[in-house]
């Protein structure tokens, strides 16, 4: 089973995702954004970084890359599509996920581990986790502040597509535990016809080994790989 990791000019987390998924046994290939055919891949990851320098709006230019047609096709076919950080932003710009990501509430770039609570196991990112589980995963973004209109947010909630929320170490979802001002403390959402498209702001690939500070990201990436295994 092969997983594609999309590479845009300005992307920088492609090797980290390759390494982390490789550690979990996946066969990973980094695919340049102008190369187009993903039919042989069971799933695709859009990694973090600064595609096109984050100029204009983060993710705005990347969405027109040829590879995005393929990503949309995989999404439609029900194969797992994961956007991490900048990848999340690209998926929103490409209309594969609702909402948008804007500058953090305090206008600071934030690089630090945060706590997130698992809200549903009905997603390709959390199927092996448990609801209520608290994970410690590094955040690394300037535009991590998730926004959408109320109706969109209500719909996400109603359909169980809020995947992770920022919380304190004990799992309480509070304002103080919200690092960037995201609406309803949202850290990850699912979308797509089958809920198989997930965007997550923190970086699970940065939390796969204790020596790096946490291995809590494993359960998320393992979920993703399991979903890819079973994908149509």
């Amino acid at each position, binding site marked *: 089973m092969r997983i594609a990791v999309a590479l845009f000019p300005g992307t920088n987390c492609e090797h980290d995702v390759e390494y982390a998924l490789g550690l979990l046994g996946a066969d990973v290939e980094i695919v340049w954004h102008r190369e187009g055919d993903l039919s042989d891949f069971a799933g695709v990851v859009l990694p973090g970084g600064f595609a096109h320098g984050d100029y204009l709006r983060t993710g705005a230019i990347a969405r027109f890359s040829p590879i995005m047609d393929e990503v949309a096709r995989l999404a439609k076919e029900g194969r797992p599509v994961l956007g991490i950080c900048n990848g999340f932003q690209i998926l929103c710009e490409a209309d594969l996920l609702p909402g948008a990501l804007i500058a953090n509430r305090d206008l*600071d770039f934030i690089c630090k581990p945060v706590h997130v609570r698992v809200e549903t196991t009905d997603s390709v990112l959390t199927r092996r986790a448990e609801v209520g589980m608290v994970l410690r995963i590094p955040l690394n973004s300037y535009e991590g502040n998730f926004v959408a209109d109320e109706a969109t947010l209500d719909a996400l909630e109603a359909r169980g597509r809020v995947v992770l929320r920022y919380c304190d170490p004990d799992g309480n979802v509070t304002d103080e535990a919200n690092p960037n001002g995201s609406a309803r403390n949202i850290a990850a959402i699912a979308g797509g016809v089958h809920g198989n498209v997930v965007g997550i702001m923190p970086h699970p690939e940065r939390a796969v080994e204790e020596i790096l500070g946490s291995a809590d990201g494993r359960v998320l990436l393992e979920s993703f790989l399991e979903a890819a295994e079973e994908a149509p």
Partner: protein
Amino acid sequence: MTEPLHRRLGMTDDEYRRVVELLGREPEAAELAMYSVMWSEHCSYKSSRPWLGRLPTEAPWVVLGPGENAGVVDIGDGWLVALRIESHNHPSFVEPYQGAATGVGGILRDIFTVGARPVALWDALRFGPLDEPRNRYLFSGVVRGIAGYGNAVGVPTLGGEVEFHDRFSKNPLVNVMALGLLQRDRLVTRAAAGAGNVAILLGAATGRDGIGGASILASASFDEASAEKRPSVQIGDPFEEKKLIEACLELYDRGLVVAIQDLGAAGISCAASECAAAGGMGMVVELDAVHLREPDMTPAEVLMSESQERMLAIVAPEDVDEVLAVADKWEIDARRIGVVTTDRDLVVRHRGEEVARIPAASLSEDAPAYRRPRRRPADLDEIQDDGPVLPDAVDVGEALRLLLDDPALASKAWIYEQYDHMLYLGTVVGPGNDGSLLRVEGTRKGLAVSTDGDALRCFLDPRRGAARIVHEAALNVAVTGARPLAVVDNLNFGNPEKPEVMWQFVETLEGLAAACEELGVPVVGGNVSFYNETDGVDIYPTPVVGMLGLCDPMPELPPRLDRARPGMAIWLVGPERGDDFAGSAFARVVLDHRRGRPRDVDGDVGRRAVSHAARLAHLAPVLHDCSAGGVAVALAEICILSGVGADVVADDWRLLFDEAPHRFLVVADPDLDLEVDDLPTRRLGTVGGDRLVFGDLGSLDLAEAATRWRAAIPRRVGSAR
């Protein structure tokens, strides 16, 4: 009568005569522009060169030493490490965000110029006190600029340091260090070989950025008038640089590059002449081929432009098409602008005319060098004799409260949490500890780095101050388990035309050299920044060292400050004197005193401390060197980060705040046998409780200590965090 052109370009009459002699005729305007920048202090090191030879530079593991784009050392298993440090002081004062950002961009180019992938950055900063709004603006602008560029270009910033003193209010210091990794066979040089080889300019378009700028700016003092000389500010484009890095690394992978040089000060003229001179060749450059951002630039402007994110690659003619294709894939511009020739001349053509023809090597090799006069500052004796007067009794809890709230001692999280410090999954020990430690993929090795400076002590005694920072940096890497391997240094000084500044400079070199010799570490690169003087006031003499250490193998779980647990024992290893207060944090913060003569290092003791620390790093969960604020502050940091108090046996407050060098704390299981027999070692106390208790001398609630320490910087810069 207007001043002659050479003087307006900052050249002396003697230097001008030298050019005339070299060329055997009067120089053309473009030629004079080239000499003026290449012979500026910034590019030619004319005041410092005669002294730099004092530094030890050799060791079996040194592959490239000073004078190259970056120092390169061999760490075994086929891996080389490239390192380099640079200042961007004046540009950061003019425009803090862009000044710092372009500083990061510039140093990264030095690293990938030698064939390495840049994988880590450190920043060493100096500002005036944060109660001044202007200093807050500079400080937060610089931090944002480093974050803005470093994060987006995809190179993590793993640490750094910062100090605040009045003397930096009008002249902040922004020093950035970078590290890169490369396989042994990938080393690239700048020596253009082979007549007929093609020079290709890669990257951003050329505009009027910093014409004569960075270099002229860094080669003269700052005052109102220089506002006019101010070149147009350079804007960093981390996206362009990221593409440039990937494109260059792909070119090296495919073996398409004969030689390469980054464009920095003096732009094309510097890069072209250095490539040619290094290969013993010449070059013909066609300026019409250069991709311009502004159409109507003069030849001199095109030659001197310091537009960022550009590289000059020398390529065999048959490989040109493939090189252009790689550039096209990465969406960067690539233009053939020159050809390598055998005649050793750098010839520049513009619209069919020859605008310059000069011996390529003369720009660098014939640069003047000055042995400027030196004089010990007349008031230094008086300053040194006026050491701090210590009170008999001190409430240790109260003193600690003050120290933890000092921005130089407080948590730097406000800074480093704005920096991506985790990219590449190599960061085993990140910022917030002593040295940072990154693992080398596919090996058991770890690279430890610490940057250290101590402006006040170096002012009080440049030689001792400089030696102390080398020892401190060595201990900072040793507590991660590393053995010191190489040093890069950034020498930030005032106006070298003042004999007192030259004296400080030479004393500093003596101190650095002696300490490096004592520790057996070579200096593999450095940078000299003179003219850090505004309105006649010089900065404190401020050497900064970047120390690279190697762990081989890396400890299973390298020590970190947050690993203390209740019941663990606390030891102090190293000399206790109780009399090292001149230039200390205690004197400065608690006594408001900044005079006296710092104590000297002890080379033998320093070497032993380093080797014990490196060994103990494999055994103890926490090691922490004692630096600013002494034992008390070092212990408080461990307790705050571990979230647990400590009970310390103490009967003399001096031993808690004194800053004698070569000491570190060990926190570990009480049964651990430290096996340190050639250094004083004392059991200080035990971890536990929710207070920091120092016997009868005082105590402090841990939560309060933590709040003060964490809030000191955010509170001052008015950040919500």
